[in-house]
């Protein structure tokens, strides 16, 4: 974006050369700094009025040579023209804001500061650099890795684990689980006993034991066991099973 400029530290060149180099300037402040050096004085002693005239003259010539100037340069030209007129006119006691002298002093300060940073950059680059003048160990020794395990567990997990254990005990104590299971043995025994009394097709659900249809868990267990028992009896050839449609009630009758 910022093309490498011609060496701005070199002796000031004739105007024609300067114009050719315009695209190489890094903005209006850079151009001003180059022009300021032609005054060959300490930047703090610079004549801002003369500098403004130099800049405006430069812009004028660039325009006459149809060199395209970036907007920045034109804005700076307008501002310097304004500053020049302020510097030439007697100060207006009614005017607000900084005086023309303050503005000029600030411009001189900016130029000096930019110059100082350029010199600082040059000094930095002139230091003995790592990899150019100073060197790190060429064959750094590798560090062997030892594995160590750090266990990770969070307080929330710990509390949840405990809560899970305790609530399981509260609502489904271990001993009660057995009471909610109607075993296949129980169901077989009950069906063998009752099937003889069933004359014709009877809904399988009627074979569920008393007290096992109220809660879903007990009903589920008893249904599963009774159905398994009916399959077992059918395999033994003691009953027939019938279902009219998918998910329709299952009926059973003795053979």
């Amino acid at each position, binding site marked *: 974006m910022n093309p490498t400029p011609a060496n701005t530290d070199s002796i000031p060149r004739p105007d024609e050369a300067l114009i050719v180099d315009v695209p190489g300037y890094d903005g209006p402040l850079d151009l001003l700094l180059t022009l300021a050096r032609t005054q060959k004085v300490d930047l703090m002693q610079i004549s801002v009025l003369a500098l403004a005239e130099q800049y405006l003259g430069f812009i004028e010539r660039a325009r006459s040579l149809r060199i395209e100037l970036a907007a920045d340069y034109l804005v700076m030209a307008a501002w310097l023209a304004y500053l020049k007129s302020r510097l030439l006119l007697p100060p207006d006691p009614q005017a607000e804001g900084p005086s023309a002298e303050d503005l000029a002093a600030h411009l001189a300060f900016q130029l000096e500061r930019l110059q100082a940073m350029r010199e600082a950059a040059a000094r930095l680059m002139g230091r003995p650099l790592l990899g150019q003048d100073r*060197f*790190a*160990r*060429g*064959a750094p*020794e*590798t*560090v*062997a*890795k*030892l*594995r*160590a*395990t*750090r*266990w*990770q*567990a*969070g*307080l*929330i*997990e*710990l*509390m*949840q*684990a*405990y*809560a*899970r*254990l*305790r*609530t*399981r*005990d509260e*609502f*489904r104590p*271990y001993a009660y*689980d057995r009471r*909610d*299971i109607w075993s296949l043995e129980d169901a077989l025994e009950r069906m063998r006993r009752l099937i003889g009394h069933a004359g014709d097709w009877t809904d399988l659900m009627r074979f569920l034991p008393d007290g096992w249809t109220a809660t879903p*868990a007990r009903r*589920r*267990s008893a249904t599963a066991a009774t159905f398994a028992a009916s399959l077992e009896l059918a395999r033994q050839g003691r009953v027939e099973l019938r279902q009219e449609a998918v998910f329709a009630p299952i009926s059973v009758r003795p053979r």
Partner: protein
Amino acid sequence: MSAPPEDQQERMVEALLFASAQPLGLQDLARRMPAGSDPAEALRRLRTRYAGRGVELLRVGDAWAFRTAADLGFLMQEEVVETRRLSRAGTETLAIVAYHQPVTRAEIEEIRGVSVSRGTLDQLIEMGWVRLGRRRQTPGRPVTFVVTEAFLDHFGLASASDLPGLAELRASGLLDSRPGAMPGLAPDGDGADMSSDTPGDDLFGD
């Protein structure tokens, strides 16, 4: 041009060997030093200078290199810390110890509803989160387990009694999570515990 003084030559060899990626032989050194230098003599001086230091000048075949002194090799090892999650059996056992300490193995088993494998408690003890407490003054004088300072540190607790009780857990909504839907819990790698966790436990649960 005359050769640099001996102490300069010594500095040169020192810098060259330090910066080089490979060991350097006498010829390499001579080629890179000012004409008339005597790298062999510089090496001899350097070798004396570095004798017994943390870094030593070693001969590697026909070449020379700096190497860490053999007795300091242990410094060249770095611990790589690898984090692992506690198994579900481990988390549950740890929770029970924290809430019920001092607690016996039988009590842990009663609360978990499954037998506690030796490995689970051993692991927690090895991790430094659980230690043996006083023996219970009951028949058989069973050992008890308590949590350690390291446990409190890890979980940011001032004491185990700071753990929220069941009622507080419920109030805070922490009890909503279902068994098996625990976020981030590693599958139970503890074989003994898994096999004794009867699958039927959950089959008819709500």
